[in-house]
């Protein structure tokens, strides 16, 4: 009872938006309501989810998704606590969470490559990671995917993070670059460099994925859900895989579908949004959609230990599985 009360408080914010909808739908049909923490605001990059919902792939699997645009760490904690069956999260979150005892498992690789880029002013002539030595680099904070990606790139070049100056600038990379406060910033390959170019700035871009393979965003579940409801995990994977395949095959259609889900998308420049979507698609393309590369997991595990974010290597056999990949 007490456990329920405290968890209720934790999940209240996440639940409020979907409560009324749940009440209506439960009586209407037999679809299983799934609240899915997305980790970010509504965005064209979530097109595969929107496409899969709109085309009825989730409904065919007996699932009705309720998108929940809360923080990534909150979603992971709720899945770890057994309150929610799934969340969208990055690979490093799974290892960080498991290191603290959260029984979360990565079940479906949405992004096949780590989508982080280092964006720099052309006059700095930064063409490879080694050129970053001695530079000041702006990034949202000393946490999250941007931080992980930058560190991975620095380690791949064979020098330590102390060889650069990292400056936390919040999620203001575009503004800081445009105002010439930071002429090197870290951001998502499918966001900051595209936005900056659309505003007329010339930029050089180093993609982390060109130098090191790391596990990125995907669907996570919990050991309990996997044990008790393996069919649900499989159904989720099947539906999302179809959404990714359709989005990859027809990005224009995916954009049109996303208009219904992303507020103000229609008001934003079409060319930029299509570029964001098409760049994202590059990171989703896979020989087998949803498959997790074990080497990418090992690299991430090693990196987190090197960064002293986890005290020792996490048991990867429990951290991810390809068992549910369609």
């Amino acid at each position, binding site marked *: 009872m*007490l*456990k329920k009360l*405290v*968890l209720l408080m*934790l999940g209240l914010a996440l639940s409020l938006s979907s409560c009324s909808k749940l009440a209506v739908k439960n009586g209407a049909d037999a679809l299983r309501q799934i609240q899915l923490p997305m980790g970010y605001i509504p965005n064209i990059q979530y097109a595969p989810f929107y496409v899969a919902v709109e085309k009825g792939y989730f409904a065919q699997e007996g699932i009705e998704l309720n998108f929940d645009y809360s923080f990534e*760490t909150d979603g*992971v*904690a709720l899945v*770890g*606590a057994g309150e929610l069956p799934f969340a969208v999260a990055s690979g490093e979150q799974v290892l*960080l*969470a498991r*290191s*603290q*005892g*959260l029984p979360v498992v990565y079940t479906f690789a949405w992004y096949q490559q780590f989508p982080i880029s280092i964006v720099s002013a052309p006059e700095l002539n930064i063409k490879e990671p080694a050129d970053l030595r001695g530079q000041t680099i*702006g990034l*949202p*904070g*000393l*946490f*999250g995917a941007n931080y992980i990606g930058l560190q991975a790139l620095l380690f791949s070049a064979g020098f330590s993070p102390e060889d650069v100056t*990292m*400056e*936390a*600038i*919040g*999620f*203001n990379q575009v*503004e*800081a670059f445009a*105002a010439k*406060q930071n002429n090197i910033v870290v951001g998502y390959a499918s966001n900051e460099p595209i936005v900056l170019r659309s505003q007329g700035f010339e930029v050089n871009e180093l993609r982390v994925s060109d130098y090191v393979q790391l596990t990125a965003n995907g669907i996570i579940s919990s050991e309990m859900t996997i044990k008790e409801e393996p069919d649900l995990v499989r159904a989720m994977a099947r539906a999302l895989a179809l959404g990714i395949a359709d989005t990859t095959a027809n990005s224009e259609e995916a954009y049109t579908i996303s208009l219904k889900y992303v507020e103000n998308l229609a008001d934003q420049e079409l060319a930029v949004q299509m570029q964001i979507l098409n760049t994202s698609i590059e990171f989703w393309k896979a020989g087998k959609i949803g498959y997790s590369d074990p080497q990418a997991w090992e690299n991430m595990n090693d990196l987190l230990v090197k960064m002293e*974010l*986890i005290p020792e290597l996490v048991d990867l056999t429990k951290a991810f599985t390809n068992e549910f990949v369609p």
Partner: protein
Amino acid sequence: MFVMLKKTISRIPWLGLISIIAGLLAWGLIARYSGLPHFILPAPYDVWLSFVKTLKNGTLLYHTIITLTEVVLGMLVGVTFATVVGYMLAKSRTLEKILSPYLVASQAIPIVAIAPLLVIWLGGGILSKVLICALIVFFPVLVNTVVGVRAVPSALYDLMNSIRATKWQILLKLEVPAALPILFGGLRIGATLSVIGAIVGELVNAQKGLGYLLQLGDFQYDTSMVYVAVFMLIFLALGLYGIVAWVERKFLVWQERSNI
């Protein structure tokens, strides 16, 4: 019967300490028997271990000093500006009419909404955090300054004028002492708010300070570390409040004597 029980309880020595111990015990029991995982609710002992660990490796002290520096500088800037502007507003109704819309509007803007803008304008260094602290401290101190200065009885002004006191003498001998009790009320509120200001700044661009430690704990799912950072913030706020209250007692000895 009830009144007697209340009196008996209030006479128990170390009541505050007993209350804290009881609170810790209750927390420990809930953590132990509720079945909640430790990443949702760590036990007090886990938090203590995390506290000792971060204290020993110097992490906690380092980040606490950073936050304390921001808070103290922010308070200095905020209080200085607030008392100067507050005095001017108290003395000039015209100026008050001109500035009031801006001052009131500034309070309607949540500081978390403009913190990212301040970081863009002023950079990610200490300056943006100090300014956020100063902004959050500014208003309560300003309001209390205005109220304090205006609360000086006009008869006392007449008295000072009758003995041909200069403006400086009126300020130092009459207005400042008379306004101090109310001003200190604003300072007490400002002391606790300034800690919130520093944390808002640190959360926007986390690099160092207790806000960063809090975010790092969240990012690493190390809930015990989050609790350590939160408790340190509470101690900082209580410490600053205590210092202001102590200074208030020292400065306002005359008031206590006059009340006897």
